[in-house]
């Protein structure tokens, strides 16, 4: 069976394809783009996660178990106890902080008014090197011995930085660097770490201090962030863990170091799934391209197929011939896509890293991990999708009867002109899919994953595809009645091949629907956040340590700073805010505290029900807590519920006084009055402050005086600046989603170009006839371009409408179930119309090459009978 068709594939398929290099190139390019985007996202995702995991591994070293207490840290007295615990082989104290490092500049000015823009975020680890070598690997340049390193670290201003940081900061041994953590600090570089062990974490954004220096520098006297333990027998981890836990005070937990990675990975899962789904769209749109190309090929080669069949080729062999052709195109595209994907992956990784840093945790990841498994999967996906989409046309080819002559050439799409039954059935399918999507959208999440939501979204996309034939036919019928020569001809073109044009519309409309839904979702989200910041950010000035701009930084400052600011003339009130990571119900949560007095009087929170001042005042009087919407959803809490939080003196019961909207963190907060945090948790530190000015106060003067009163590491932000910053972070986070969508639309546009060039090829004779009837070249080109424009327009209309529905699913189902944020749905008319118009215009432009080809075709040859 294989004997006849393999050489045929080369002789017939390839020779045909070679005659149409433009279409072949477009098809291959479409598949390549789809594969590239899919691969780039997968590579970026896994590289980011792997970098994160590797960093955690490098930081944890050989640690089997550690004790940690979140941002409050753990008392250092615990160290000898844990080291002496049965089953513990070695113990290592760790103070860990993220900080901005930079080379001291000429000016002593504050970093910037808005946000720290200079310097490098780095992980600064305070360790006892004497015992730490058993946990983490260290290699210093100059082959320093442990003792030599120790001697240098005994310098109360000595720091070790990695080679990577030294290069980035432009400093060498013996030079000074500045670090912004709880305070602005100066350190002398006493050694350069080679990339090994710990120094490999965070792509080398690591600095090392002696534990004592770290305690002093980060104002952690008497406290440690972690105690790492190596066990005598790691197989008895659970047993030793229990023994260690018995020694721990409330609020301190023992966990395996991989736990933190697992937590972040869990948080990342939704984000990764979103990106993966988006990246698959481009691949699917690419599959439409293959379908188009193969359908056109079958139509054009009907005569040839009939002759082959007449010569004795079986229907099966014909099908195989075409399927193999599709698979080969897919393979070629996939191979190209691999190369392109690897190139794109760097950019994608940068964007992904930025998003992770904005939303989840400090991460440096610069190396794309070329996982052969992912490369293989992308190759298989590209080829497989191509094969699948070539299957329909291949089967259509198999149905060509041997007796069919060349005469019936060009009578419509695959298997002839689509009849009204076909259109009716697809339309029914579209309605059914829409109804199912609507029903599914009401189902709850499954194990935290909005499966039904994703299914609903998929069905909505399917509905778009299914509605396309009706739209193509209907659009063509409608447009034919409109005046205008070019449009009239274009409408005829559209109606001439509704089957294939429907596929083109389906792919373009799908891409546009995704684009529209993202635009609607992101814009709605952005507006929600903007409105929220306007309504809830009411203070005039904010101040926070620069290192708070690194996600997950535990930096804090002493509350005495509040008094210094209060004393400034023109300051009406100051609200000190504290946020602590504490363990609760086996997870890390953010326990926060603000001055409820100031908040009730001057601030405002948007509660799901009830008025802000009243709820806050009551919470203050009764010692109750407020929780954010995301927190409430995460733990299934509602107003009136009671929670028990661990505190140094034991557990403290807190009633939930209200649930409020908040868009600052993913996991949400539980908030208490600061007086209560001081009393119950004994915490006297702050993470930020909000300053309210008196009505007649001079803001510029107050901020100048605040700068004098506060440590230079404190960043001052105006109300407008903070709001701007919130939206900046927001935009960064969604940059990659837009990029992905853009690629899907691009692939769809390639589809428009290939579909049109197929049409032009098939209608060579028709065009010749029109030309012979006196249609100018420009007229021909205009008709083709008009057809492209119509495709774009119809796709934009369908895509826009479907996008609005899809956005509703994204906002009310997927996002709500994945992240817990309430987003107010709103149609951003201007940007939406803009994007769709650009896409439609691009579709119009995509007709240019086929239009030129059509216009240039010689008439005599086209009309000549053969």
């Amino acid at each position, binding site marked *: 069976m294989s004997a006849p068709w393999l050489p045929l594939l080369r002789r017939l398929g390839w020779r045909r394809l070679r005659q149409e290099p433009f279409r072949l190139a477009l098809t291959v390019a479409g598949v390549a783009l789809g594969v590239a985007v899919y691969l780039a996202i997968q590579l970026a995702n896994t590289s980011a996660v792997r970098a994160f995991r590797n960093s955690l591994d490098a930081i944890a070293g050989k640690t089997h178990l550690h004790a940690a207490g979140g941002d409050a840290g753990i008392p250092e007295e615990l160290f000898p106890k844990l080291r002496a615990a049965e089953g513990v082989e070695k113990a290592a104290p760790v103070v860990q902080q993220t900080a901005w490092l930079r080379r001291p500049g000429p000016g002593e000015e504050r970093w910037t008014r808005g946000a720290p823009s200079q310097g490098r975020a780095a992980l600064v680890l305070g360790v006892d090197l004497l015992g730490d070598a058993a946990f983490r690997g260290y290699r210093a340049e100059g082959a320093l011995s442990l003792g030599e390193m120790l001697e240098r670290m005994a310098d109360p201003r000595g720091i070790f930085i990695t080679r990577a940081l030294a290069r980035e900061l432009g400093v060498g041994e013996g030079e000074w660097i500045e670090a912004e953590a709880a305070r602005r600090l100066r350190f002398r570089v006493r050694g350069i770490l080679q990339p090994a062990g710990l120094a490999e974490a965070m792509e080398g954004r690591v600095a090392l201090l002696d534990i004592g220096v770290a305690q002093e520098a980060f104002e952690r006297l008497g406290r440690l962030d972690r105690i790492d333990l190596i066990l005598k027998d790691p197989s008895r981890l659970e047993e030793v863990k229990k023994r260690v836990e018995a020694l721990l005070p409330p609020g301190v937990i023992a966990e395996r170091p991989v736990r933190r990675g697992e937590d972040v990975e869990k948080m990342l899962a939704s984000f990764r799934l979103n990106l993966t789904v988006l990246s698959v769209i481009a691949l699917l749109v690419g599959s439409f391209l293959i379908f188009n190309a193969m359908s056109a090929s079958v139509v054009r080669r009907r005569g040839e197929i009939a002759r082959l069949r007449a010569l004795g080729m079986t229907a099966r062999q014909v099908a195989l011939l075409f399927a193999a052709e599709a698979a080969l195109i897919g393979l070629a595209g996939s191979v190209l896509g691999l190369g392109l994907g690897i190139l794109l992956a760097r950019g994608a990784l940068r964007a992904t890293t930025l998003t992770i840093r904005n939303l989840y945790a400090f991460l440096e990841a610069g190396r794309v991990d070329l996982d052969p498994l992912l490369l293989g999967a992308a190759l298989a996906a590209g080829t497989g999708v191509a094969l699948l989409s070539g299957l329909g046309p291949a089967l259509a080819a198999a149905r060509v009867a041997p007796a069919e002559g060349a005469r019936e050439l060009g009578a419509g799409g695959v298997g002839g002109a689509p009849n009204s039954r076909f259109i009716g059935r697809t339309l029914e399918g579209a309605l059914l899919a829409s109804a199912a999507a609507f029903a599914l959208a009401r189902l709850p999440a499954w194990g935290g994953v909005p499966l039904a939501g994703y299914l609903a979204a998929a069905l909505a996309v399917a509905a778009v595809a299914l509605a396309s034939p009706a739209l193509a036919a209907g659009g063509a019928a409608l447009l034919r009645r409109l005046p205008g020569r070019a449009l009239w001809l274009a409408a005829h073109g559209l109606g*001439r091949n509704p089957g294939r044009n429907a596929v083109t519309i389906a792919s373009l409309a799908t891409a546009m629907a995704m684009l529209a839904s993202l635009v609607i979702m992101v814009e709605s989200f952005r507006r929600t956040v903007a409105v929220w910041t306007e309504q809830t950010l009411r203070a005039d000035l904010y101040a926070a340590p620069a290192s708070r701009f690194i996600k997950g930084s535990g930096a804090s400052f002493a509350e005495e700073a509040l008094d210094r600011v209060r004393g400034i003339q023109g300051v009406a009130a100051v609200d000190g805010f504290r946020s602590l990571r504490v363990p609760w119900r086996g997870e890390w949560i953010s326990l926060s505290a603000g001055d409820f007095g100031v908040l009730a009087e001057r601030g405002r929170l948007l509660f799901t029900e009830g008025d802000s001042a009243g709820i806050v005042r009551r919470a203050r009087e009764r010692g109750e807590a407020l929780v954010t919407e995301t927190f409430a959803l995460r733990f299934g809490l509602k107003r009136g519920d009671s929670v028990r939080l661990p505190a140094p003196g034991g557990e403290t019961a807190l009633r939930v006084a209200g649930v409020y909207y908040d868009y600052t963190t993913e996991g949400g907060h539980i908030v208490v009055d600061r007086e209560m945090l001081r009393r119950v948790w004994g915490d006297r530190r702050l993470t930020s402050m909000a300053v309210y000015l008196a009505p007649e106060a001079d803001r510029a003067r107050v901020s100048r005086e605040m700068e004098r009163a506060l440590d230079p590491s404190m960043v001052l932000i105006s109300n407008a600046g903070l709001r701007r910053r919130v939206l900046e972070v927001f935009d960064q986070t969604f940059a990659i989603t837009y990029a992905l969508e853009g690629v899907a639309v691009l692939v769809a546009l390639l589809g428009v170009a290939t579909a049109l060039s197929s049409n032009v090829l098939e209608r060579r004779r028709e065009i010749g006839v029109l030309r012979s009837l006196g249609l100018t070249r420009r007229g021909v080109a205009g008709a083709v371009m008009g057809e492209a424009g119509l495709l774009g327009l119809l796709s934009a209309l369908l895509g826009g409408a479907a996008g609005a529905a899809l956005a509703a699913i994204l906002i009310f189902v997927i996002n709500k179930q994945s992240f817990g944020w309430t987003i107010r749905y709103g149609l951003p008319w201007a940007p939406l119309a803009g994007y769709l118009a650009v896409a439609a215009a691009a579709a119009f432009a995509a007709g240019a090459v086929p239009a030129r080809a059509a216009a240039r075709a010689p008439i005599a040859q086209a009309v000549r009978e053969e």
Partner: protein
Amino acid sequence: MAQEVARLEKAAKTYLRGGAPIRALAGVDLAVHAGEFLAVTGPSGSGKSTLLHLLGAMDTPSEGRVLIGGRDLAGLDDAALSRIRREEVGFVYQFFHLLPTMTALENAALPLILQGKPWGEARARALELLARVGLAGRGEHLPRELSGGEMQRVALARALVPRPRLLLADEPTGNLDSRIGREVLELLAALTREEGVALVIATHAQEPLALASRRVRLLDGRLAEETA
């Protein structure tokens, strides 16, 4: 002598086919006059179609000149050539070449629409011509709903709708059985006569020869004989 409608002067045409030059016409002098019925005969490949394409401004000669209505086509741009095709020449093909998605009426009206005439005017003229080719009432049919003879009548109507001065027909009966072919041919001759249109038919059938007012024979791209 009636007015000259079109003229070939030493017109030659060479194609490249598979890399090798094929001389389709080798210096032909021919004038077509108003009202005449010229039959061009010759074996397959003798250059009949090429001759018609040159006369119809659909192709340009490799050597020599083509004049239509006294104007030399050399040096005319696409717009001018298109205009000549649209207004001065009609064409009828062996395989009809109707646009499959358009109705008979739309097909017939197409040249006027291409001329930018309003639909109403185009429609009236197309309906008139359809009636004259015997297809009154069939205007809303799609080509695939018509027989071969009917399709060729639509094509004939389409060719005459713009009131050309020259009608070129390339084997117009080649794809029809002899009875239908004869009917179409007679219609063609009658209509061109009525409208005063010069008719040039390329054919190797016998019937046209009987009706033709003049016959020329092409052999290997040259005019071999001319019969008055």
